[in-house]
């Protein structure tokens, strides 16, 4: 209630541009995502999806333009913005030489999670790893590590969850788990931004869809009524085979 007015948007991008050297990876992205919405961002390889997600995650600083997260400027209120973010990327972000429990404890303390011990048990149960909690991460199977990286990202119950191509390396079991966590009514008004190649799953989960190609948003809107037509449109817009 300290805010003058309740911020309307969970994510707001205005003219966000990011260049690497002379290569313009993002070229003036405008994007708005309301609270509690689920946006699926489609796009071929090299479209700039990861860069866009990392920019929203405050990992990258835009070369030009403005990013606003829940009404806050990440450059000025970095800690508050980061407190509300969860990120699942290509890498697991977990320390292999530590046990699963130690990893969660470290990240939980970092995010000042209250009742941490209970919370660790809760998320471990959620991803089905409660029995392996005290094993070193490097001894866990690949699928388990992937599930565990989901647990890491939601330890502080973030209001905004960013997923970068979560389908890669995710087995059937983990995929169902993820769907369950994303659709968990207990998490309340969680906003999700997900990039993916997987048209079918992306359309099933997203309430909003957008297509990014060559650093520009070329399509955005609510999920189409008839999802069967979407793959054709995607193919025509991006020139890529789905």
């Amino acid at each position, binding site marked *: 209630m300290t805010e003058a007015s309740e911020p309307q948007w969970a994510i707001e991008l205005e003219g966000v541009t990011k260049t690497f050297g002379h290569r313009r990876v993002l070229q003036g992205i405008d994007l708005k995502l309301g609270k509690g919405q689920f946006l699926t961002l489609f796009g071929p390889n090299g479209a700039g999806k990861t860069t866009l997600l990392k920019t929203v*995650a405050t990992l990258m600083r835009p070369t030009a333009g403005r990013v606003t997260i829940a009404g806050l400027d990440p450059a000025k209120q970095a800690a508050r913005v980061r407190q509300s*973010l969860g990120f699942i990327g290509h*890498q697991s*972000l977990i320390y292999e030489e530590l046990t699963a429990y130690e990893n969660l404890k*470290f990240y939980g303390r970092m*995010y000042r999670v209250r009742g941490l011990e209970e919370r660790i048990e809760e998320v471990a149960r959620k991803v089905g790893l409660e029995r392996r909690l005290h094993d070193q991460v490097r001894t866990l199977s690949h699928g388990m590590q992937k599930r565990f990286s989901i647990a890491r990202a939601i330890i502080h119950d973030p209001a905004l969850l960013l997923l970068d191509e979560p389908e890669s390396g995710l087995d059937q079991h983990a995929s169902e788990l993820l769907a369950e966590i994303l659709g968990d009514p207990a998490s309340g008004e969680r906003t999700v931004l997900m990039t993916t190649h997987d048209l079918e799953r992306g359309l099933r989960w997203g309430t909003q869809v957008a297509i990014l190609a060559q650093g520009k948003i070329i399509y955005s809107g609510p999920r189409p009524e008839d999802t069967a037509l979407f793959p054709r449109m995607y193919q025509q817009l991006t020139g890529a085979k789905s």
Partner: protein
Amino acid sequence: MREFFRQVLNILWKDLISEWHTKDFVTPVLVFALLVIIIFNFAFQPDGESIGLVAPGVLWVAFTFAGVLGLNRSFAREKERGCLDGLMLGPVSREAIYLGKVLGSFMFMFLVELISMPIFSIFLNLPLLMPRLVLVAFLATIGFVAVGTLFAAMAVHTRAREVMLPILFFPIVVPLLIAAVESTSLVMAGASWQSMASWLQMIIAFDIIFLVVSALSFEFVLEQ
């Protein structure tokens, strides 16, 4: 402020238990430092007379080279599964990340020095475990780690990172190395506190300047 130190200690705690599980800072660095000493012994064949002249230099060369190795390890660990991103994503100030890493590396490096000094003194037949020498090592290691942590974070993002760290690190720590070697020889020669004072002051000045500057510029190194 309390929150800042809580974050620093959390990162330190993480590094300590990780070291406890793997020992992959202390063990290789210690072995390396001891090897340097032995190689130097073959190269110089010091006798009773010259050993006092060479020993301080050998000691600090060993610590510096071994330290570079350890600092590289310390950041390679963060980079492995993108964990550095994990730290960056958290509500932690960049200065806290820096200080946490500095404290961890300092403890491991100082521990290596404390273990290796008595071993050196046996090999070189010199009394190296003197309280004043421990003080010199303590102060100089702060400076080494302060600069080394900044550059290790940089080097880990470059190609050829194993070579990049020493290339960045050695020229900058020249004054620290001179001061550490000179005060070590003064201690070994049994000189007074007074004669050491200016060297110790220089080490302390170096520590303070580069702790502050490195902490402030650390965010430019981590930024993407």
